[in-house]
């Protein structure tokens, strides 16, 4: 099954109001070509789930500057002053989630885990509105799963079957987000024929991936 589509076909599937996961960590391992196409399309009122909001001119930050999000769920927004401005001025709702809980909430959403318990955030403002569950004498916060309508992800290499391979620190949230959205599209630096990635070296099995696009160099 050749899962390759064009960037135009990919962005045509993303609608106003969607919840969208975007891979990447401070714009490393981010699907820049898909982001550029979404900026051009101007789809809006999106809810973003991403580790951070990148920079004003790099990563998902370009969509923040273009005011495409009504809500942002992230662990860090400090590298993009526009996110902070929109939050302070009430233009965009920002929900900050500790990074380890954020990635685990996404994993839960994609792996049939209805919730999980961690100590992270106990006794802090993060605890507000969350259930405290005691297991064998120890308190934990109950964290709930996150899913999205769409995930736009990056891979260094993808085969036509959607198997993904990564180099360096580009995996970050990409591998986990691949499990947690109704439709998953991956922008690959390089698309290779099926069989070119050994089954031992596949990082994300193609069964998690709906479509792939070739990134623009």
């Amino acid at each position, binding site marked *: 099954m050749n899962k390759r589509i064009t960037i135009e076909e990919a962005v045509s599937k993303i609608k106003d109001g969607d919840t969208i996961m975007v891979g990447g960590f401070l714009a490393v391992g981010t699907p820049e070509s898909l982001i550029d196409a979404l900026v051009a399309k101007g789809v809006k009122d999106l809810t973003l789930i991403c580790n951070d909001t990148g920079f004003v001119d790099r990563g998902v930050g370009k969509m923040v500057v273009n005011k495409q999000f009504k809500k942002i769920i992230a*662990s860090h927004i400090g590298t993009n002053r526009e996110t902070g401005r929109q*939050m302070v001025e009430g233009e965009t709702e920002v929900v900050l989630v500790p*990074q*380890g809980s954020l*990635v685990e909430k996404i994993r839960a959403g994609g792996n049939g885990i209805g919730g999980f318990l*961690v100590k*992270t*955030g*106990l006794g*802090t403002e993060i605890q507000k509105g969350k259930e405290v569950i005691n297991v064998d004498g120890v308190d934990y916060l109950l964290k709930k799963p996150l899913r999205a309508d769409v995930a736009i992800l990056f891979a260094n290499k993808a085969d036509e079957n959607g198997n993904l391979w990564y180099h360096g620190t580009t995996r970050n949230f990409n591998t986990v987000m691949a499990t947690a959205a109704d439709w998953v599209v991956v922008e690959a630096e390089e698309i290779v024929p099926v069989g070119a990635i050994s089954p031992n070296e596949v990082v994300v099995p193609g069964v998690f991936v709906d479509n792939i696009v070739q990134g623009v160099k």
Partner: protein
Amino acid sequence: MAMDKQQTQEFIAKRVARELQHGELVNLGIGLPTLVANYVPEDRNVTFQSENGMVGVGPAPDESNHDAHISNAGGMPVTILTGGAFFDSATSFGLIRGGHVATTVLGALQVAQNGDIANYMIPGKMVPGMGGAMDLTSGAKRVIVAMEHTVKGNPKLLKECTLPLTAVKAVKLIVTEMGVIEVNEKGFELIEINPEYTVEEVQAATDAPLHISPNLIDMVV
């Protein structure tokens, strides 16, 4: 003090480096803590993690060697040492929360005498988000704070934190340019002092009672 800001930071980083034990996995926060990697004693094999997805973090690359796909948690280009490994954020925070990270070194806005730490926001002023700091402070086996003793002359070592907390009762050791302070059942205990300061000066810069260790020694970096 003849030390300028950079010298102060290097002084603190050098002292923190001596805390790292042979064989440990260590996570360094951005800013001052990153400098610690430069001063690890030569007889100790310490492995550094970057929470965006690697162990075996090496020094920044030369311009000619720069690989845009290898960066640290601050987004800066780094290298990977032989024997290192890349992984995703779920594995990375599994390492952190699961107690596999022996030591994390972080900066702080405030530390309380019970070990509470505030380092991720100043309401209405600076709200960058906690990133991985809440996981690191609640997950690493040992949390060391590396920071200047005061900010604009105001103490950062307090009876109670007034800023939103990053974690409760998390900090075990504080290293500043004035000394080394253990956080234990007594509260703040000064165990090493920079000979450039007197105990009275350190106390004056600290907004909580400072217990003086009976074994107080001069700080050696």
